[in-house]
């Protein structure tokens, strides 16, 4: 028998969350809750497993294909299990003018990963503008924002990741 998708606690969180999401839309427009519902699933499971996508689709009364279509369009959804820490490094123009390319190269060397690669602990990605151009260079780790980065500051942040 297949493992259940959620633990009882996770199930409770999902049920409450999905009910709240659906309540924000007209009753005949449940499918509008797709983005928040996928976010909820990812918050609970760390990624979007296929059975989770099917469950979201069921709640929002759409086909699983529709859930997959949306999930695959946006870069923040993980259709494969990522590393424990997803590091998104902005290398857009303003950040590159403040050394982002060199910062990314430093991270690649330090983590032993190329941008786009992952291991169990880290997923390293080059990303587009994070709207922090005045405090470049910047990156996000699991959505937590870090800005005005120097080598020392970045080392200190990485050292705290267990």
């Amino acid at each position, binding site marked *: 028998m297949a493992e259940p998708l959620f633990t009882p606690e996770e199930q409770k969180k999902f049920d409450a969350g999905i009910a709240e999401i659906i309540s*924000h839309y*007209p009753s005949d*427009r449940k*499918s*509008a*809750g*797709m*983005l*928040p519902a*996928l*976010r909820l699933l990812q918050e609970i499971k760390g990624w979007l497993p296929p059975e989770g996508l099917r469950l979201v689709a069921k709640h*929002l009364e*759409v086909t699983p294909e529709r859930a997959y*279509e*949306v999930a695959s*369009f*946006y*870069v*923040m*959804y993980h259709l494969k299990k990522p590393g424990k820490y997803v590091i*998104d490094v902005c*290398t*857009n*123009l*303003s950040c*590159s*003018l*403040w*050394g*982002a*390319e*060199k*910062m990314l190269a*430093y991270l690649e060397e330090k983590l032993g990963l190329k941008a786009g690669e992952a291991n169990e602990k880290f997923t390293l990605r080059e990303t*587009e*503008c*994070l*709207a*922090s*151009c*005045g*405090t*470049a*260079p910047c990156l*996000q780790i699991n*959505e*937590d*924002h870090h800005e005005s980065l*120097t*080598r020392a500051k970045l080392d200190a942040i990485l050292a705290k990741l267990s």
Partner: protein
Amino acid sequence: MASTAKGIDPIISAAWGKPQSWTLDSYKKRGGYEGLKKALEMQPAAIIDEVKKSNLRGRGGAGFPTGLKWSFVPKDSPKPKYLAVNGDESEPGTFKDRYILEDDPHMMLEGIAIASYALGVHTCYVYLRGEFKFPAERCQAAIDEAYKAGIFGKKLMGKDFELNCYLVRGAGAYICGEETALLESLEGKKGWPRLKPPFPAVVGLFGSPTVVNNVETLASVPHVFTGGSDWYAKLGTDKSGGTRLVCLSGSVNRPGVYEVSMFTTLAELIYDDKYGRGMPAGRKVKAVIPGGSSAPVLGADELDVAMEFEALKVKQTMAGSGGVIVMDDSTCMVRSLWRVARFYAEESCGQCTPCREGTPWQTRLLRKIEEGRGEPGDIDMLSNVASSIAPYPPIGLGNTICALGDAAALPTHSFLMRFKDEFEAHIREKRCPFGDKPWGSFGDWS
């Protein structure tokens, strides 16, 4: 951090950096929600007229007159009407809305309440880019406070008018900042822009009349009522009222968000002690992008221009989203354009052929030139590819459903127009003349 603009007191950014500026208590102590009180004593049509008279123009990029946009919403529609707040701040060089959301979200919420009452909207969705975790937390806390205080909810500040406000986070797609793509995303779909017309004011969210306004635009609205439309209009030019937030980044000593008068010039922004404090030692301005990465680039001899919509239009560029990116004379223009081109290739939604095929093609050509593999003819090819996406000029009449195509082509056209010699040098010398330091003075990260 914002600072006082030359000749004006800051309006939008006045409380940034002050203790607890994001709370309802702090906002009310500063006169918050007084504009809403005044608006609630007026007829909805009079509110719209007041916004029209203020000459407030949208701060998201297009600069469309806000009152006029509101007046397009049909008054007798049997369908519910919606307000969608565009907080999908993703245009490279632009980072102002983040500060409003983090430091003074109630200012935007008050604007939402005024707009909703004027338009007969009972449901507002605040759409923030997915990466904005902290801004979203601050904004949600402010929404919760507004409900608790009876500002939102069944009775809008005691008035017999229900207003609900929900926050939705995107999931990482620049295209969702385009207003129709934002609506698709709000409907739970991938962010594919819609053909216009019909415009969202008539057929928008769920097929209903919908106004889409930027965060800063709505944060400006309360001031039209507390200060009066005449006062607000007089702060700006004949066609553009108020102040504006500009985001300064790149090769300057003090990047940041500054609230400026519409009469402030690019040169003042870069060199004035109140703002950018000049260039890194020994360096000169080479190029400036004045309104987010899609705005055509200007050269060093074009900085004596006011940072407002009409003046920048005369220079064949645009005020756009307020993102000013400065490049100094040690920056490689080919490398810079390549990076911008990659962004548009990455963010094209893929719906229209010229954009889907043209944006990666531009990127490949630029990479080839930057890496010293460029051939004679590549520059013409690059120009042709950009023209196939959107000819230049005029601005904003491309071959694609939405303006992302224009946004991808305009930088190419303008970089080639102003810095063609640098592209030619790359091809002639078969290398980047800037060697392994193409990013200028701050590019040596340590």
